[in-house]
């Protein structure tokens, strides 16, 4: 039997191997979509799962990343990685503003104020001339990585996206296990106690919110390069609801939960839409929501972890 300390390393190794080989079996653009949403859901989970804040406005960051990157790549002609960096920075800055306004509120009020701010951002994107309104920002060039490697080919694009995902995921993993992450968890469990211990709770929450927004922006920026398109779908409040579903389904507060959840939801939307069940996609997503809330509140990964703990330890 594998000793406990080796377990994660082996797991990570196997998963990385699978991710590298995956495009041989599965359509790479679909895989890239999964990775982008997995990163988005992981970023969202950093907030809901580890700080206990339900944001209902995360679509704003996804869309901001996408639009800014798209604008920079189409208008300024910078290389792809710079476009993504600027998109991410813009989302981070927006996250800081949202955070400043919202973190003093709790529970439902927090969810509602983030929703309202995201609606304002949606309005800005509808009105601003550079976003192309309903048409979206189209024909974003994939360009060249570091000015050298062409990303036009789906395979090279895939490995670039995988690298971005691993970077984002590792950042989240490091954050959670750092002393900073421990304080976040303490806030989630018992905020008054964290305050009484002398932590500046608001500052920690703001930092976590900004980080989460930045990573969501990174996901949006990457997505816009993959699909060469940034559109209002990403800014709509339905998107904020979808990321809640992904996280809940996979497992709130687990590292891999959001990844599994995103993969499941994206696959459902992709494969179900083609079959005879096509017009039932919304209903099926709704059913999953209901079943998760009633029966599997810890999500797929959470339930597996529980099962493992019960039977193997």
């Amino acid at each position, binding site marked *: 039997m594998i000793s406990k300390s080796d377990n994660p390393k082996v797991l990570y190794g196997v998963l990385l191997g699978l991710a590298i080989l995956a495009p041989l079996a599965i359509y790479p653009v679909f895989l890239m979509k999964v990775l982008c949403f997995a990163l988005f859901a992981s970023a969202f989970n950093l907030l809901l799962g580890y700080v206990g804040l339900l944001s209902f406005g995360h679509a704003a960051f996804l869309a901001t990343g996408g639009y800014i990157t798209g604008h920079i790549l189409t208008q300024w002609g910078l290389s792809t990685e710079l476009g993504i960096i600027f998109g991410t920075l813009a989302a981070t800055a927006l996250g800081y503003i949202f955070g400043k306004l919202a973190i003093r*509120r709790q*529970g439902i*009020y927090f969810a509602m104020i983030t929703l309202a701010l995201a609606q304002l951002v949606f309005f800005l994107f509808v009105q601003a001339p550079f976003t192309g309104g309903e048409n979206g920002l189209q024909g974003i060039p994939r360009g060249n990585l570091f000015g050298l490697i062409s990303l036009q080919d789906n395979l090279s694009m895939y490995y670039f996206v995988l690298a971005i995902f691993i970077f984002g995921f590792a950042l989240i993993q490091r954050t959670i296990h750092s002393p900073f992450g421990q304080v976040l968890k303490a806030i989630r469990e018992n905020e008054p106690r964290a305050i009484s211990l002398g932590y500046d709770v608001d500052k920690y929450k703001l930092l976590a919110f900004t980080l989460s927004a930045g990573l969501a922006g990174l996901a949006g920026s990457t997505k816009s390069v993959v699909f060469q398109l940034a559109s209002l779908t990403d800014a709509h409040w339905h998107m904020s609801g979808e990321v809640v579903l992904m996280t809940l389904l996979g497992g709130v507060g687990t590292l891999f939960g959001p990844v599994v959840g995103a993969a499941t939801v994206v696959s459902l939307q992709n494969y179900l839409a083609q079959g005879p069940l096509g017009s039932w996609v919304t209903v099926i997503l709704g059913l999953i*929501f209901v079943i998760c809330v*009633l029966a599997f509140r810890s999500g797929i990964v959470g339930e597996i972890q529980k099962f493992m703990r019960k039977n193997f330890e």
Partner: protein
Amino acid sequence: MTELLGIPPQVLFGQMLIGLINGSFYALLSLGLAIIFGLLNIINFSHGAQYMLGAFAAWLGLQYFGVNYWVALVLAPVCVAAFGILLERTLLRRLYREDHLYGLLLTFGLALIIEGSFVHWFGVSGQPYAVPESLQGGQNLGFMFLPTYRGWIIVASLVVCFGTWYMIERTRLGAYLRAGTENPQLMQAFGINVPLLITLTYGYGVALAALAGVLAAPIYQVSPVMGSNLLITVFAVVVIGGMGSILGSILTGLLMGLIEGLTKVFYPEASSTVIFLVMIIILLVRPAGLFGKEA
């Protein structure tokens, strides 16, 4: 002719009246949400879907059973409320001890199921529902032509809203309700059947949504998605008014209708966004909303 804010007063009055009509929908819907939140501590995300069900119940009734508008006005809310009660008894009940977020997520899922099924059966494009004969035509008020049916909406919804407010604030049943909100254990000890009270309250809240749906059917198209965009606006209204505040939700509903109406004159593109701006400002200045009590 004198002008107010750069437009003739006739136009301004007309727009304010139109705003009030839309506001009376907001008031009915947000009142239902506020009652449910007050007693059940659940953010009822399926409120929009239940509003849509009300409109559809009226349309289906007319189409297949020849049920006329006036009967539908009573029957549709009763049917939809019965459906709501079923959901409460079988599903929502399991969540009362959990964080409210789970209630929100569950009802969000239910809304997806209900709306998705109706889209599958009826498509998204709306079904027409005729204005009842006795309410056709209109009155010239001097500053505008007011269709009789729109006038009826204001009257009907104000009567229902303030009737509900009176019932909750001034009657014995209302006193139980308010006490149930404050301290359910104590009420149980006094021999009041609190679970039944909760079920009936949820049913009533849902019935209000369905009633709004029936009222809306003749002026908007009856469509499966008619509730989904309205829903988040109504949430904003409830939050601005102060979660759980009965009078707050009614007055804020009307006020937001007015504000939205005026925005349609001065900056129409922003008319579907202005309420969220108001909400952010209110929450920053008065965190518990206009009529809410600070926790």
